[in-house]
């Protein structure tokens, strides 16, 4: 009789004992953290602000990956590639200028990544200055750019390409330390088993996407991140994206179209690329599409004149925007640039030069949503969705003056709009669902 019972277990659910043991041993998120409020949401899920129940009472940002649903029932469908990436990479890295992962908690079909908390981000700083019609002070600008390059150098030395650098993904602690966040699109490039383009057809949010990607290059490298740094630096300077193109949509067969408008925005400032400056330009798939565009001359100098009051600042930007990826500065060369050696020098605390009254506002969180971090019973899930939608709308209104606001929420973590988002999201009042290949 005994035998029969055990055979049944072994036949029907051979892992039952194992799971029971594991579940009993597991400490839940809410055992360890007090959720203080909701920060932002995106394709991946949502980010919460939480305080540790340990004696240090430290503040964290907890990123909860969306549990998969089949209808209303939450079920296991496999951990997404981007979650696996972000977890795998974050477990291996540690650097002052990269957001630190404290722990990962797997519970009730959801994955929670517990990160160190950062009070600000680049997008919020840009937003603050554009609302108050002030420029980002030179010492702050330089420190933020320097620390960004410093974090990027670490990632690149570890053979990691970030592939989604943009203001919303670059955080700053209250102490003025830059933290590169969101490695959900990042990849280890050391001895890849297959070429990078095989995995993800589209990488980097359109406004920050390097020209070689726009021209369809199959092989790209760390230089795509450096281009994005150039875009971010320019955005800190002018408080709006320097190349703010309209994203062309994928066609029905999910072919990636030539991003004509984005390319045009780039050449309007940097001039039409010349085969003599860019070896290999002719061989890129979209070379003919590029030739069909009107020709422009380089106006970056004029662009900088009214915005960066520094010859070396312009020089750095010019070199970050080198068309040929092989001629583009590396993160290391960027750090060694003369601009960082002339006064004012970059500081460890990017806000060191600011008066105490000048600081940036704290990250906004909403409190009413906190309970929904714990999955509600199935019957309530519709209400939960409604609440989430209302909140997303609320959030995007808050940020509606920034062109990105229609996309994937604001600060704190990812917003992946590489495929469907882009400028199309501008002005739409609702956070829309985004999809991503890969």
């Amino acid at each position: 009789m005994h035998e029969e019972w055990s055979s049944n277990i072994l036949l029907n659910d051979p892992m039952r004992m194992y799971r029971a043991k594991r579940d009993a041993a597991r400490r839940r998120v809410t055992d360890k953290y007090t959720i203080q409020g909701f920060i932002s949401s995106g394709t991946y899920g949502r980010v919460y602000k939480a305080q540790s129940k340990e004696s240090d009472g430290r503040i964290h940002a907890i990123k909860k990956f969306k549990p998969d649903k089949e209808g209303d029932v939450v079920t296991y469908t496999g951990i997404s590639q981007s979650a696996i990436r972000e977890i795998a990479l974050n477990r291996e890295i540690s650097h002052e200028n990269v957001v630190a992962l404290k722990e990962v908690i797997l519970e009730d079909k959801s994955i929670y990544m517990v990160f160190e908390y950062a009070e600000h981000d680049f997008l919020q700083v840009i937003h603050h200055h554009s609302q108050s019609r002030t420029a980002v002070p030179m010492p702050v600008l330089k420190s933020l750019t320097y620390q960004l390059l410093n974090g990027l150098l670490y990632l690149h030395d570890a053979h990691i390409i970030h592939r989604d650098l943009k203001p919303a993904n670059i955080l700053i602690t209250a102490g003025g330390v830059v933290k590169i966040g969101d490695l959900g699109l990042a990849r280890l490039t050391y001895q890849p088993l297959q070429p990078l383009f095989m995995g993800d057809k589209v990488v980097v949010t359109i406004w920050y996407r390097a020209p070689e990607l726009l021209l369809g290059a199959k092989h790209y490298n760390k230089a795509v991140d450096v281009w994005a740094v150039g875009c971010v630096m320019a955005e800190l300077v002018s408080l709006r994206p320097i190349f703010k193109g309209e994203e062309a949509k994928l066609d029905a067969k999910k072919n990636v179209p030539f991003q004509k408008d984005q390319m045009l925005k780039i050449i309007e400032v940097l001039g039409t690329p010349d085969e003599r400056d860019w070896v290999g330009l002719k061989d890129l798939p979209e070379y003919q599409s590029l030739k069909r565009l009107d020709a422009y001359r380089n106006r970056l100098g004029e662009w900088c004149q009214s915005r960066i009051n520094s010859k070396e600042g312009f020089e750095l930007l010019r070199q970050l925007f080198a068309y040929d990826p092989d001629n583009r500065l590396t993160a290391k060369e960027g750090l060694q640039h003369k601009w960082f050696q002339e006064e004012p020098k970059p500081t460890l605390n990017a806000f060191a030069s600011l008066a105490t009254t000048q600081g940036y506002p704290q990250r906004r969180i909403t409190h009413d949503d906190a309970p929904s971090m714990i999955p509600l019973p199935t019957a309530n899930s519709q209400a939960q969705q409604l609440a989430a939608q209302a909140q997303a709308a609320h959030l995007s209104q808050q940020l509606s003056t920034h062109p990105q606001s229609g996309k994937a929420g604001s600060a704190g973590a990812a917003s992946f709009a590489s495929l469907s988002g882009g400028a199309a999201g501008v002005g739409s009042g609702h956070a829309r669902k985004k999809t991503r290949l890969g």
Partner: protein
Amino acid sequence: MATDFWVSSHNTRWNVDRAALRQARAEDIHYVDHPEHLDFLALFFAGLIARLGKKLSLRQRVIATATVFFRRFYLKNSYCDTDPFIVIAACCYVAAKAEESPVHIKNVVSEARGLFSKYGIKTFPSDNSKLAEMEFYLVDDLECDLTVFHPYRTLMTLCWKEGSDSISDAEAGELGAGIDNGQRYWGTGEGRLEMHEGALQMAWFIINDTYRSELCLIYPPHLIAVTAIYMACAIHQETRGDVEKQSQLPHAFGGAQGGMGTTRRSSRTTTSPLKRAQPQDIVGFLAGLNVNMALVATIAQEIVALYALWDRWKEDGTVDSARASLKRSASGAIMGATPMGNSPIGTPATGDHGHGDQHPEIVTPAFLIQLLWRMREARLADLSAHPTPGRPVVVNKMLERAQAAG
């Protein structure tokens, strides 16, 4: 850094010693007649991972990662408490993602069902969500450490040649991809060892074979790679001839510099010993790597012990392995070529359980699957009944573990 082995999760959290391995099997060992049956299980499961991997068209490195995940999982769990077959499938599924070559969960489920049913396993679930559920628990037990280092990388860094055609097409990509992008993460020497095509291939296969044992949990990958190179050089006829010739000449022992100045030759010329001006000083090259050669000798002994065990394993179909060559080569070739004679450290795996005597019996998959079923039934019976006087430990361990984890 994700590419610096020394600070990696692999090195800092997942290198264990023999005592930890014994502890991991402490419960299982109550349920087997002979401790070496556990070694056969380790061999069998790794073989299944490789087969499932091949069916899913996974590359060798992905299969290796899946195997390491499996071994790590069973550092914390017992065979008798779990269903190794779903764990195998989950390991392949996660490894494919971790190595950026994902496969669809549907394919994993259907290929796993097909493969395991050939062994009479009918319990593998047809429902994708059961595999996804296992993935979830697996990632948790792996503590989210999903970046694994492998000896292949060291082998290629040390021995890779452009235009090398020794490794099959499927693996050629692994040899070439990103090789110039990499840095050596250990070692003092520069330059490369120019191996015969056959010897390089053999080293590759020896590395594949090491995953059938638990070596990947005990030794850092670069040491396993050096051991594989060393063994391949000792087994491979032509290479061995070269080494023996060189050992007649006193200047050949000039040291690490021996290999540095050598210009790269095409694979065609290296295959013919007659055309080569002067063979590279292999002994000097290995010495110049500045690794613990005593440890290398120990690993070599463990690999030989694995092959001895493997010889008694009978499965339908042929398995590609370096064993055949090993058997062909004169007995004692390995130990004879060891630069430092007997190793001072440890004993090979077969001696581990204190059974020096040889068991000539042949072990088959059917036997192991029956054994596993009996283990699981006996275990369940023990857990549900009052703890029997003979095995109170088993239940207490459970409690202890749960407490430790909590």
